């Protein structure tokens, strides 16, 4: 069991950047291009780690602390997240709170690091980031609460281990709704379309990217890697809910889960290719929608 | 020695003092006479109060003079108020602005009237004959009328006239009530000299004619209530208090109102026993008490004149005392305790108002703003006394009001409870809204300097100290005396 959890974590650490590659390839496919190599993210990281860094004269130690703390949080979160029926490395009742709040810490420090530069663009991005996450958090927790109520378990590992196709037979619609709201959360939290466009380059329209405009070199590598891990962890929650494959053999379950992650990446790519970014003023409605969906799921569960 | 025989001293001494004042040459002389006389009188009064504590009650003059726990307690309050006011007088008259500075003739008249008031109120407390009781109350009206217009201004004239007419009419009703009481008693066939003695009436109150007693009590309540400033008979009070010189206002609020209320208290056991302890009179007092409280609450918010504000505050507190009497039982205890607390606090407030008014030449609160800066001693005194009067802990008034609430709750009188709290809250808001600018606002204009002497500082310190002490501690003797007084008002013995 312990071994499985470890492999889980290692897998996350290794495979997280791959998701970005998959997403890009999917988008390239839809755009009819060959696109970057799958492992582009890894190359970028390697290059960035080797580069120097430039710091604004305005900044203080807070600016430097941002990426470090962010990545540390992402890594810790990775240790919390279970996948494919295997328990997370760290697992206890209500660890989901810790998970959510670790991302909270990550966000907090990214945001203050952005504000440390005194650049109005980064301030803009920071302000949007806090707004959207403030709305995404209830959606995530409500969804998890639904799962908890459904399985009677309080720890992530416990509740996801208790999920199974049988659970779908019992209360499929509930889980489906939760899945939907999680998908929105994943997209919003990782600043993907329709909430944010990762490869736009107009400062005025960016959210997450604009916050890290001034980071360079290893710092930026940390941020990139942290983002990838965040995508992986949150995605794994979604995958856990959407396809709880329980063949009995842990290896098979894990493989299925990995497949699920890749599918998720593809799905994100597809969404990014065939949807436009919604107007910033519409984003809150989207997130509130996610909250409502989770609530709806709970009502279905209670009745 | 048997102190009782000399009760008449308490009335004679002030009369002598009045004479002495008239004989005096200078302002200073009058002041000296007042200070000496009142202190002497206070000493004598305290001796008799101790006598009452020892023997239960004193009586003299073929039973026409009588001092029991109830009157002794009021005598105590009266002593406190008169002593404090008399000690305050010199400071006040020294601080008079030149434009209306009392000349020596005016001073002589003031001294004489001051002693006259002392004598009249002493008569009220001492006389056992309800007829003489009435005479005493009427006398206070007539004597104090001219104290109001010590400084002769059109307003003070007007106030004096209203005071005179309204109180005379009211007290006339009280006379009618006294006559009715006599009529109710005339079935007892006492020899003429005792027919109207309260003690005799009290002994066989059960044989008094109930209907006549009720009618009597109605007349008395309206009559003495007018003098006590119970709404809706209160209308003279704001005018008189606002126009009278500060020491006189202190006297009015500090004791004259209580004296009238004391007269009502005297009749409560009679009518209750006569009508078979149905709580009829209590209900009336409760009603009028609430009426006064709410009237004060309604008017106090819109006052601009500091002394008028204090006058309405007096109406409120008289109402609170009446509520206590109306609740009966332990409520009477609270009411009597409240009498003392209110008298001390209100005297202090009027002292402060008087001196501040002299410094600014007006009592308009907008002009008095920032008094803590301009006059630390009296500004502070005013702030503290206002806080006490709105019932802020840890001061004495808070305590008596709290007891009152507990009693009300104990009787399930939740409406009383609610109305009391509502009214008190309204008064609180009304007063505090003015108190904050008064204390801390930006001073308007430059007043004359304060120059508070040692006496004044001591006066303030003593009042504040007493109020603070009474707020956290009741001395045993006081409690006992209050208990005995409650027995008297309640007629039947009542466990505390």
């Amino acid at each position, binding site marked *: 069991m312990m071994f499985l959890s470890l492999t889980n974590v290692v897998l996350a650490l290794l495979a997280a950047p791959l998701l970005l590659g998959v997403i890009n390839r999917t988008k390239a496919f839809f755009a009819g291009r060959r696109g970057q190599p799958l492992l582009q993210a890894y190359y970028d990281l390697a290059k960035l780690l080797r580069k120097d860094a430039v710091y604004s004269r305005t900044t203080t130690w807070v600016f430097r602390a941002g990426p470090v703390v962010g990545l540390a949080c992402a890594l810790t979160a990775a240790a919390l997240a279970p996948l494919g029926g295997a328990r997370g490395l760290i697992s206890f009742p209500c660890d989901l709170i810790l998970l959510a709040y670790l991302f909270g810490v990550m966000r907090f420090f990214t945001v203050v690091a952005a504000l440390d530069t005194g650049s109005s663009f980064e301030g803009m991005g920071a302000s949007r980031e806090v707004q959207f996450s403030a709305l995404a958090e209830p959606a995530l927790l409500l969804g998890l609460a639904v799962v908890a109520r459904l399985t009677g378990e309080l720890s992530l590992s416990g509740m996801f281990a208790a999920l199974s196709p049988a659970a779908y037979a019992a209360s499929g619609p509930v889980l489906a709704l939760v899945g939907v709201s999680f998908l929105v959360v994943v997209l919003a939290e990782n600043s993907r379309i329709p909430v944010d466009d990762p490869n736009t380059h107009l400062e005025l329209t960016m959210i997450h990217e604009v916050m890290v405009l001034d980071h360079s070199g290893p710092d930026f590598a940390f941020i990139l890697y942290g983002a990838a891990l965040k995508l992986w962890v949150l995605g794994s929650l979604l995958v856990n809910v959407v396809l709880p494959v329980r063949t009995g053999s842990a290896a098979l379950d894990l493989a299925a889960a990995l497949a699920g992650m890749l599918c998720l990446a593809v799905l994100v790519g597809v969404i990014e290719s065939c949807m436009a970014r919604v107007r910033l003023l519409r984003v809150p409605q989207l997130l509130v929608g996610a909250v409502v969906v989770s609530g709806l799921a709970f009502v279905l569960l209670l009745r | 020695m048997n102190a009782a025989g000399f009760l008449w001293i308490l009335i004679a001494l002030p009369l002598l003092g009045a004479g002495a004042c008239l004989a005096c040459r200078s302002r200073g002389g009058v002041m000296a006479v007042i200070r000496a006389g009142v202190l002497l009188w206070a000493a004598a009064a305290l001796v008799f109060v101790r006598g009452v504590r020892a023997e239960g009650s004193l009586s003299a003059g073929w039973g026409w003079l009588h001092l029991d726990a109830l009157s002794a307690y009021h005598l105590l309050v009266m002593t406190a108020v008169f002593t404090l006011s008399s000690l305050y007088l010199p400071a006040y008259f020294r601080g008079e602005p030149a434009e209306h500075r009392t000349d020596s003739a005016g001073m002589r008249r003031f001294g004489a009237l001051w002693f006259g008031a002392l004598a009249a109120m002493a008569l009220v407390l001492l006389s056992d*004959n309800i*007829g*003489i009781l*009435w*005479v005493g109350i*009427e*006398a206070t*009206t*007539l004597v104090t*009328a*001219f104290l109001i*217009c010590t400084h*002769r201004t*059109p*307003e003070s*004239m*007007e*106030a*004096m*006239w*209203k005071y*005179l*007419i309204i109180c*005379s*009419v009211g007290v*006339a009703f009280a*006379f*009618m009530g006294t*006559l009715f009481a*006599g*009529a109710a008693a*005339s*079935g007892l066939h006492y*020899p*003429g*000299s005792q*027919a*109207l003695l309260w003690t005799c009436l009290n002994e066989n109150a059960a044989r008094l*004619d109930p*209907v*006549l007693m009720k*009618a009597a009590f109605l007349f008395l309540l309206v009559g003495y209530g007018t003098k006590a400033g119970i709404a809706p008979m209160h209308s003279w009070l*704001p*005018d008189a208090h*606002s*126009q009278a010189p500060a020491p006189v206002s202190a006297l009015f609020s500090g004791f004259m109102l209580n004296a009238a209320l004391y007269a009502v208290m005297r009749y409560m056991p009679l009518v209750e026993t006569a009508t078979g302890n149905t709580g009829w009179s209590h209900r009336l007092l409760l009603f009028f008490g609430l009426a006064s409280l709410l009237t004060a609450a309604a*008017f106090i918010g*819109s*006052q601009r004149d500091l002394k*008028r504000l204090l006058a309405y505050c007096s109406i409120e507190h008289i109402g609170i005392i009446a509520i206590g009497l109306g609740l009966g039982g332990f409520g009477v205890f609270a009411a009597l305790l409240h009498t003392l607390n209110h008298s001390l606090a209100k005297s202090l407030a009027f002292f402060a108002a008087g001196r501040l008014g002299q410094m600014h030449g007006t009592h308009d609160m907008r002009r008095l703003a920032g008094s803590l800066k301009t006059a630390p001693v009296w500004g502070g005194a005013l702030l503290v006394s206002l806080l006490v009067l709105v019932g802020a802990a840890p001061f004495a008034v808070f305590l008596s009001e709290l007891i009152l609430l507990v009693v009300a709750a104990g009787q399930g009188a939740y409406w009383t409870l609610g109305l009391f709290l509502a009214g008190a809250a309204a008064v609180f808001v009304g007063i505090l809204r003015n108190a904050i600018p008064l204390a801390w606002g930006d001073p308007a204009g430059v007043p004359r300097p304060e120059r508070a002497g040692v006496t004044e500082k001591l006066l303030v310190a003593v009042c504040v100290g007493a109020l603070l002490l009474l707020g956290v501690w009741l001395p045993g003797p006081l409690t006992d005396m209050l208990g005995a007084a409650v027995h008297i008002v309640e007629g039947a013995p009542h466990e505390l």
Partner: protein
Amino acid sequence: MNIVIDTALLALIVSSMLLLGFSQIRSCIRAVAVQGFVLGALPLVAHGSGLVVSTLLLSAVTVALKGVVFPRVLFRFLREADVRREVEPFVGHAASVLVGFLSLAGSVWMCSRFPVFPGNPPPLVVPVSFFMVFVGLFIIVSRKKAVSQILGYLVMENGMYVFGVVVLRDMPLLVDLGVLLDAFAAVFVMGVAVHHITREFDHMDVDQLDTLKG
């Protein structure tokens, strides 16, 4: 004996009515003086059985004060404050008289609610005293001149005096005298007050004393 008392009471009623009707302050004062004399006679007839010294003294003092001194005092102040001599009522004279009748009826009705008074006095006494009290009040309320107010107060006092003398025969003399003294002092003080007021405002129109309000 009751006949005499009833006549006296009738005299009081009539004088009060006239008081309501008169438009000249002087005549009002005279009416009150008349009442004073009647009241002075009252103790004699009321305590008919054997003329006691105290009774004589009482009636004498009464006549002296209510019949002689008060009117003189009032006339004097009226002279000093030489102002128009009309009463100037809020309520017209005819209406006032009507009110008088109503109050008489009312007081009769009200007194019917009381039990028989001890030592059963003639039936008309209590209603008349109530009536006079009401009339006095009405005069105070409905007249503008300060002097009228004093008159009203006097009438009230008289009414109560009737009650006292007839119903409380054995009221100690000292109390009676004290009461009379107080009444005198009251009138005197009010007179002095009017004097001062006329000096301050050079009018004695109470209606204009309304600067203090609220």
